């Protein structure tokens, strides 16, 4: 959204005032963040609730986590919005065209994180990449990393589970995208594209590259916050509400038997369960966090989350326009196996 939201005056286009405003907002952010826990505890104390009983515990969790997660998410989304203003799908395509497999897969997975991407433009992007000479496996590395390792997932993992888990998710997500793309590239499946895609050779359009000032980039960060946080906040609140319910009422050891690390079959079950489900990281991570407190293993829950995000049924339906059913099956198989491996690795590392 390029227009200011209602009730907020349009910002001046000068750089100086923007930096001053940004610094002020950051200070305010830090002050609000520091006072969240005391404020939540104070509110719970004012209510006729036993802070140790399930309703009190659930409410305290909800009151503290909702603003905390939204604040951290806003910060991460803003930073990513600024970083992404340095990249565009056209530029990424130019960087990847004609790359060898291997180096190309690594570059594509990395660029997948920082290039602006929306799943509604997955198909034009796929065609645009393949028709401009980006190898199929390299294109897949991009298409796996872009939706899976996104700022919402990283921001929420960081907010709820700590930076170690967020960093591990980033690392394993990149590795999965690189390896799965390389495997698909090695299988030489170009013939399994829909014929019209395979035969399409178009010269990339020469679109003028907009020259962005620092002020424009700060604006890009602000627009990302308005757009993304504006879109996912109901999911965050719903997710935390479910998480609060789990915290308050689900017995401590209920999930250890079905989602614990000793239940080896729970990882494949989590992956299979995740495919037909369609949610986003915003709704899933708070639930994941709550499940962990009840004995679920980290790798199992993260495999579930990756499966929900990277292998969603609606996205597969969109990709069906350009991929044959056989190629989609290979894609699901390779990525699914990768997620399985990540699930077992996480369970082993963070057990």
């Amino acid at each position, binding site marked *: 959204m*390029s227009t200011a939201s209602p009730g907020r005056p349009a910002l001046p286009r000068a750089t100086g005032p923007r930096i001053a405003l940004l610094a002020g907002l950051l200070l305010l952010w830090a002050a609000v963040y520091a006072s969240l826990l005391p404020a939540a505890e104070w509110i719970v104390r004012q209510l006729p609730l036993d802070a140790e009983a399930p309703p009190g515990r659930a409410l305290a969790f909800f009151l503290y986590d909702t603003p905390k997660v939204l604040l951290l998410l806003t910060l991460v989304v803003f930073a990513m919005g600024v970083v992404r203003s340095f990249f565009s799908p056209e530029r990424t395509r130019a960087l990847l065209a004609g790359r060898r497999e291997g180096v190309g897969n690594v570059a594509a997975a990395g660029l997948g994180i920082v290039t602006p991407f929306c799943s509604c*433009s997955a198909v*034009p992007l796929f065609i645009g990449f393949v028709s401009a000479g980006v190898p199929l496996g390299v294109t897949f590395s991009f298409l796996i990393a872009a939706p899976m390792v996104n700022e919402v997932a990283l921001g929420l993992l960081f907010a709820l589970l700590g930076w170690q888990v967020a960093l591990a998710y980033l690392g394993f997500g990149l590795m999965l995208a690189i390896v799965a793309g390389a495997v698909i590239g090695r299988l030489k499946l170009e013939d399994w594209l829909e014929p019209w895609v395979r035969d399409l050779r178009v010269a*990339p359009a020469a679109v003028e590259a907009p020259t962005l000032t620092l002020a424009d980039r700060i604006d890009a960060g602000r627009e990302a916050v308005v757009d993304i946080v504006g879109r996912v906040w109901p999911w965050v609140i719903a997710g935390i509400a479910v998480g609060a319910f789990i915290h308050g009422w689900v017995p401590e050891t209920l999930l250890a038997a079905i989602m614990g690390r000793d239940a080896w079959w729970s990882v494949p079950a989590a992956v299979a369960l995740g495919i037909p489900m369609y949610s986003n990281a915003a709704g899933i991570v708070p639930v994941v966090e709550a499940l962990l407190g009840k004995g679920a293993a980290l790798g199992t829950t993260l495999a579930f989350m990756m499966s929900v995000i990277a292998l969603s049924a609606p996205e597969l339906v969109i990709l069906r326009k350009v991929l044959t059913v056989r190629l989609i099956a290979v894609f699901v198989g390779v990525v699914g196996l990768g997620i399985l491996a990540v699930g077992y690795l996480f369970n082993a590392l963070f057990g």
Partner: protein
Amino acid sequence: MKDVKVLGPGCKRCTATAEMVQQEADRLGIAVAVEKVTDMAAIAGFGIAATPGIVIDGKVVHAGGLPKPEDVARWLAA
């Protein structure tokens, strides 16, 4: 009469972009025929990798994301 094509599979941003083009054209008093191109093969044929895209009189001027109204005005006036 300028021939404007808005390229996109029909997502919210694409509709918003088409509306913005029409609005800016009306504001500037430029006669335009806005056409929405939703066919994937046709979109891909213009060589863009992200939608929505804007093509004015056969030339791609924008690809990816909601454009700024002032940029749309500039492209229309050019």
